[in-house]
């Protein structure tokens, strides 16, 4: 109990301390890490539902998008200031989570995956349909001038980094507190054996709905923060791709581990970055120079590498990186 709290504090302190070092020497990674922290917040939320409660949602982008649009549209059209718009964004995601959960949780397994996917698609299509307001796929930017809270400029790289870190830390510690609480024990029990949990007197529907709403709220907070910190909202974030991403991040880092989502998001972010930036273009050039075969699609086929990484993961570490670490070396890892 104590050591897991200490571990999380150390991780957060580490992220706090490397900020100035990164800014000075690796400005590129500094910017990346701010983005990763926001996306990792999304993954932390996803992990509560998938990793701890055992519910695989294929539609979490709708909650991310609900937070993003709930916040960004109020700023753009309603001319609200950042702070209240952010909270309304989170509220939108919570409400959507409650409604979708109430309906989708009547199904289980594959049914739940399909129903969440369909809800997310309808949200995505709604965002496209009202392109008069959302500007569809193209999206819209939030002007730099309005992106500040109480005179603090959120577009400044350091401020942005710390804002992302604060959001991430709050969600990470919330998830730690949740999984070590009695409610968390019930969620894990539902994941392991729902029928038995019911016969021990817990209403699985109520607990699953609770997990879904918390998970949706964190996804929405990440979406709203993304809009505010990076000044952009677009329908891509509501697409199925952004429902799959948190699943991949969590699978890579370790479903059902509190720190897995962060690790998975960092690794996957840089895997995609390397694959699309140097590995695949390099491979395409190599093929062309040595074999005289032109492979125009190869340079941009970074998903090939991501797919390969996932196949290796499923074969050799099906519990994710931190899941394997917990199994072999650190049994107390939350």
């Amino acid at each position: 109990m104590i050591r897991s709290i200490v571990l999380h504090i150390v991780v957060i302190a580490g992220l706090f301390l490397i900020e100035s070092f990164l800014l000075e020497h690796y400005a590129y990674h500094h910017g990346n890490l701010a983005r990763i922290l926001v996306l990792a917040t999304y993954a932390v939320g996803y992990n509560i539902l998938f990793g701890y409660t055992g519910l695989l949602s294929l539609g979490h982008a709708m909650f991310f998008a609900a937070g993003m649009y709930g916040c960004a549209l109020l700023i753009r059209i309603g001319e609200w200031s950042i702070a209240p718009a952010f909270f309304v964004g989170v509220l939108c995601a919570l409400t959507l989570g409650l409604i979708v959960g109430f309906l989708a949780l009547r199904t289980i397994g594959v049914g739940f995956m399909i129903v969440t996917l369909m809800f997310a698609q309808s949200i995505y299509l709604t965002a496209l349909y009202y392109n008069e307001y959302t500007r569809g796929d193209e999206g819209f930017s939030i002007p730099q001038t309005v992106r500040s809270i109480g005179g603090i400029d959120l577009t400044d790289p350091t401020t942005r980094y710390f804002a992302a870190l604060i959001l991430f830390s709050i969600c990470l510690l919330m998830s730690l507190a949740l999984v070590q609480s009695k409610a968390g024990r019930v969620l894990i029990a539902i994941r392991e054996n729902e029928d038995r949990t019911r016969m021990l007197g817990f209403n699985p529907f109520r607990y699953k709905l609770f997990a879904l709403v918390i998970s949706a709220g964190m996804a929405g907070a990440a979406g709203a923060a993304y809009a505010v910190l990076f000044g952009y909202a677009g329908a891509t974030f509501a697409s199925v791709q952004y429902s799959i991403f948190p699943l991949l991040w969590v699978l890579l880092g370790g479903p059902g581990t509190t720190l897995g989502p962060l690790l998975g998001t960092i690794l996957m972010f840089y895997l995609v970055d390397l694959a699309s930036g140097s590995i695949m273009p390099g491979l395409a050039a190599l093929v062309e120079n040595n074999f005289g075969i032109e492979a125009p699609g190869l340079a941009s086929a970074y998903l090939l590498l991501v797919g390969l990484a996932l196949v290796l993961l499923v074969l050799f570490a099906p519990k994710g990186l931190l899941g394997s670490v917990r199994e072999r070396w650190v049994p107390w890892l939350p």
Partner: protein
Amino acid sequence: MAAIAQIQAEGLVKDFGGLRAVDVGQFTLNKGEIRAVIGPNGAGKTTFVSLLCGRFPPSAGRIMFGGKDITAMPAHDRVALGIAYTFQITSIFGNLSLYDNVALPTQRRITLSSERSALKQSTMATLERVGLADRAQETASAQSYGHQRLLEVAMGLALAPKVLILDEPTQGLADSEITDFIALIKDVARETTVMLIEHNMQVVMALAEQITVLDGGRILAEGSPDEIRSNKAVQTAYLGG
């Protein structure tokens, strides 16, 4: 002492497609007794007790608990009322520790968040009772079959139920474990009504005050162990005509 009805069932029927698995006219389980439910394989014993604890709804009939109609009540609410069920096919949380397995039903009763130590104490006491306390931190799936059966019983006990329904609890236990088990249930029965489905006649005769014999989903006979032993219909059902 006049018998007080704890669970009553009237006209209880369960159909699976065209098969009438249970058709029990009148059934009463009295407060404080140990009741054994016996019968040949496929007699509908598990289906019958599953209806009582609400794992699935009956096709017809009524179930009363302490005078209250619970026919439409979901299983988790029946647990809250005091009906606990332990599974015939061992159903534990295999990836979790024995402690966590028992802490889960225990925390149903201990609700104040400040009582972390009370939760621990009560959980360990239950594990102690079934003789698994020294294995509390071990993983459930790594235990022997007999220990898993005991864990299953411990999870039922942890709920401190009014009625404990045990579905073939001694299946797969060694003889020495069965002796301990009989002592445990005798102890439990001092404050709890116990209903057990059992094939092991040694256990039935050692524990049961009343026996219900099911055959083809119907109650074939009911009575004290001596009455059941001398019942012609029961002998026919068990030994063949």
